């Protein structure tokens, strides 16, 4: 029993790094395994192609860049987890972001999802379309939304 299986949703970038740090902290404190999931957002790429903002070759370039960024980012989180003595598994997948994150949670039977801060103000339309909102609402397990990034650095540095 207890919280033994934590998933953190990451997308690259500064906020994701801080979110991952908090997840590493939690996993270490709870002696839980940590899985980080990065999704190559094929839906956004498809939408941009459809609306003619992207040309084919450009979309392909972004797709491989996103995959490479995901690989590098997950490797960085793996190093962070290992340094703090946390068991870690990376998941690099592609598709619709919220679907893939929720699917990963279900497959792993995770106890907790850690994710970055949501938008400040949202309309009904945004709740429907925003990937973060949808992950938050559709997650089958408890969700921790990371805020107060200064404190995150302090907590991470303390272990």
């Amino acid at each position, binding site marked *: 029993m207890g919280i033994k299986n934590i998933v953190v949703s990451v*997308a*690259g*970038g*500064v906020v994701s790094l801080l979110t991952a740090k908090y997840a590493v902290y939690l996993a270490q404190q709870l002696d839980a395994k940590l899985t980080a999931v990065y999704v190559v*957002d094929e839906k*956004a*790429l498809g*939408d*941009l192609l459809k*609306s*003619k*903002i992207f*040309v084919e*070759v*450009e979309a392909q370039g*972004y797709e491989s*860049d*996103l995959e490479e*960024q995901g690989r590098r980012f997950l490797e960085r989180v793996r190093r962070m987890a290992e340094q703090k003595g946390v068991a870690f598994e990376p998941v690099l997948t592609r598709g619709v972001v919220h679907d893939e994150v929720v699917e990963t949670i279900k497959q792993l039977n995770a106890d907790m999802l850690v994710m970055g801060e949501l*938008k400040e*103000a949202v*309309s009904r339309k*945004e709740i429907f379309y*925003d*990937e*973060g909102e949808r992950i938050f609402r559709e997650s089958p397990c408890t969700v921790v939304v990371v805020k107060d990034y200064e404190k995150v650095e302090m907590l991470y540095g303390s272990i």
Partner: protein
Amino acid sequence: MKISDYLKEHACQMNLSAQNKEEAIREIAGSLNSGGEINEQEAFIRDILERESLGSTGIGHGVAIPHSRTDSVDGFLIGFGKSSSGVDFSALDGEPVHLIFLMGANPQELNLYLRLLAELSKLLMDAAFRRELMAAEKSSDIIALFQKFES
């Protein structure tokens, strides 16, 4: 993560004097640079023009969204320019472009960039939004319109 969180008044050019695509890009980049948001202006413009060489970002309905991932910005930035007479952007529908959104993002922020680009494209599909952008007179009106249509 909304366009209105990133678009600033100083980056909105309400009366572009540019006659062609490169001039328009340079003019908007100049206003972004005045806010200190671009690290290397020429590198930024070069990256944008390089993307344009793959195919025009003039997507029709008088709108163009020149964009690029580029090391010359730290996070994400967006500028706006309006041309009453229209700029030849070799747009997909062959019509001159009146509303230009110039976007750039650091390669480290790809996901944020893609989502904001998709958000902008969705907003610009709305004819009422385009009409109101065309009718806007001040930079603050542009920001207010984004706030209105994004809420």
